[in-house]
């Protein structure tokens, strides 16, 4: 994490249509005739109407399937307007939200995961802010990626937490770096929530006065330096899992724009430049290179999704980015190891000259990456 937290993802200007929408899941007194009937089955999702006037919308949901489901109203970029999770088989629920004119989707997610089954919903009346469907698709795909990274992280964190709770230091050390990968690939989103990152990823020197040290790095020190796990560490491990489940749940609601995606990619490289290249991030475990790799992978994913638009506006920039991503991936591959838990050479074995080479590669990539946002909005 960074010492100075900038709420970059949320601070970026968002299309007007995305703001001023209030969503709530309170029971509504709307008449049944105005409500949209949503029938959620195991592989189907049907809605009674595809078009409604702007204002309050009511979804009368019935789960006719065999699994618990989740129903959401989504913006074109897949940000959640309103949602209800965990609607059990055979049960009903009424969901309401305030919506402005524009295009939306209603998604049923049987089993509460994956892309779900979608139905279009057009909200009429008033002016509709212009959107670029290509960029909406890019943001939606990125959100899906971020969600899948978060989903994949939880079991790895559980392995880590279970090892600590069993007092198995070796197993916990082996599970430490893998438990961080999903977080590191999408860190700007996690940081945009503001309150999760300080609890999960704070380094000791970043603590504010009176702040309790929690999260991965407190456990890292206990495992590598103090070499002991007691009641305090077990409680910290539980807390970490709780906080990360909170993160997993909130990814769908993160405000992501094409600009924030592009700048988020650059920020991931900033993370590498200020935390990983210096060896500060994982100063006890020296597993910095797997974090490094995850940051680069996350940046590359955001870039790949924005590339079709960026390429049209600035082909020279995307050519340079392709080249520099390939170069840094090749360089990192030189540090792969089969004898470490995270698959990379321990960072304390990386010499000053090698760190300089890594730093040069980060600069070579981050400089053109800082121009991606401009190429996307041009």
């Amino acid at each position, binding site marked *: 994490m960074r010492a100075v937290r900038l709420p970059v993802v949320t601070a970026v200007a968002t299309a007007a249509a995305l703001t001023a929408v209030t969503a709530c899941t309170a029971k509504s007194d709307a008449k049944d005739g105005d409500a949209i009937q949503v029938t959620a089955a195991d592989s189907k999702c049907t809605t009674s109407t595809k078009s409604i006037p702007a204002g309050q919308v009511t979804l009368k949901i019935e789960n006719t399937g065999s699994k618990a489901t989740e129903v959401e109203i989504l913006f074109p970029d897949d940000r959640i307007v309103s949602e209800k999770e965990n609607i059990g088989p055979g049960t009903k629920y009424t969901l309401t939200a305030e919506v402005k004119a524009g295009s939306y989707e209603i998604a049923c997610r049987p089993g509460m995961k994956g892309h779900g089954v979608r139905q279009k919903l057009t909200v009429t009346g008033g002016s509709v802010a212009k959107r670029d469907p290509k960029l909406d698709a890019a943001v939606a795909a990125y959100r899906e990626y971020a969600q899948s990274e978060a989903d994949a992280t939880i079991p790895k964190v559980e392995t880590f937490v279970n090892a600590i709770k069993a007092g198995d230091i070796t197993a916990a050390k082996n599970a430490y770096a893998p438990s961080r990968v999903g977080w590191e690939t999408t860190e700007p989103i996690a940081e945009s929530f503001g309150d999760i990152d300080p609890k999960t990823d704070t380094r000791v020197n970043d603590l504010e006065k009176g702040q309790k040290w929690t999260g991965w790095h407190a456990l890292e020190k206990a495992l590598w330096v103090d070499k002991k796990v007691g009641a305090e560490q077990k409680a910290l491990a539980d807390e970490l899992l709780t906080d990360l489940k909170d993160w997993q749940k909130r990814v769908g609601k993160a405000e992501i724009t094409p600009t924030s995606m592009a700048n988020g990619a650059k920020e991931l490289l900033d993370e590498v430049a200020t935390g990983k290249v210096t060896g500060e991030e994982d100063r006890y475990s020296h597993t910095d290179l797997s974090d490094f790799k995850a940051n680069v992978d996350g940046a590359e994913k955001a870039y790949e999704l924005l590339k079709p638009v960026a390429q049209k506006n600035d082909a020279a920039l995307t050519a340079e980015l392709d080249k520099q991503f390939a170069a840094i991936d090749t360089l990192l591959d030189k540090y792969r190891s089969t004898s470490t838990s995270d698959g990379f050479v321990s960072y304390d074995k990386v010499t000053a000259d090698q760190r300089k080479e890594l730093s040069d590669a980060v600069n*070579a990539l981050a*400089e053109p990456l800082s121009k991606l946002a401009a190429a996307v*909005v041009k």
Partner: protein
Amino acid sequence: MAETPKSESPSRRSLIGWGGAGLALGAVAAGGAVAMTRVGEDVDPAGADTGAAVAFHGANQAGIATPVQDRLHFAAFDVKTDDRAEFVQMLKDWTAAARRMTGGHAVGDGAYGGLAEAPPDDTGEALGLKPSRLTLTIGFGPSFFEKFGLEDSRPEALVDLPQFPGDNFDKSRTGGDLCVQACADDPQVAVHAIRNLARIGFGKVAIRWSQLGFGKTSSTTPGAQTPRNLMGFKDGTRNIAGTETDRLKKFVWVGEGDVGENSAWMTGGSYLVARRIRMNIETWDRTSLQEQEDVFGRDKGEGAPVGKAKEHDAPFLKAMKPDAHVRLAHPDSNGGVTILRRGYSFTDGTDGLGRLDAGLFFLAYQRDVRKGFIPLQRRLSATDALNEYIQHVGSAVFAVPPGVRDKDDWWGSTLFSKEAKEAKES
């Protein structure tokens, strides 16, 4: 990169309002037009106004015979690309940026007023500052000629420096494929220049090491007082002046007959030796005045040679101790060998042992390293009394190509003649 400033990004010069504009035209010949300084469209021959701009174009690069500015930021780079076309493009981009910065303008589209989502082209810290006689001088190190198929273009005179007795190099402050010397009267202007060139270069080159200098230790202006080094002495009294066309031609600029067929590209250029010389400041300060004066062969107050009254009096070398610095370094003791010195004092904080990490960042230009620095240093490293108080801890040598002739020319065009020829034909 845009060549003309956009209306929303005013030049540094237009921001400050020139009191000194309208100076009479004058002419000075110091190996071309390099020593001329420009204020607006006018020329200030002496470069006395320290806010002025030094002409970027000329037969020789500026920053060599140019009157020495107060501050230095020197950077050595390593080449990171193996794509020759990409590197040549970077040289052109660097030249365009250097042309703007030496003229007092911001790089590219400026430091503000552009797209809100993109970082500005210029980093902005020199906004509102005068051109400050900024000069930017590029050089190519021996290792550079192992790249881009340039093996045959390495000049014979660009030799690897031999190891001299007492050398103790820090690898991270030694060598480099390229260098840029930025000199200015305002340190922020010099640092801004290196920072922006480094930024343009990312992916193509990476900074290997860099050095800040804060006090000039020699003068290329005739009649001027010689500045003191950190030992408190005047050194380099008989330096070559920027106006001494004959001595510049004889000792500094590479002449047409100097170089073999494959290195004719160096005509009008020069060779630069850079040495980071650490001074043992604390032990020097505990040395008696007599010994200090004996070591240099000058008196501390006036800077006069032993037995003489004034700094610029001709020295009587035999009156000095045999190992006195001035005696050993003087051209008369070295068969006439003369180099143009342009060094700066440095203090990079302290060394962790409570001592200043300070000394002289020695910069010397010469027509041929084999006839300049090498014989001189061979002699000094063997017997100079000063060696007890100094140590050479960094070293580099560069071939400094001739000047950028006009707005269509670029740094290194004579070396990359294939590309320069293609550009002309297209």
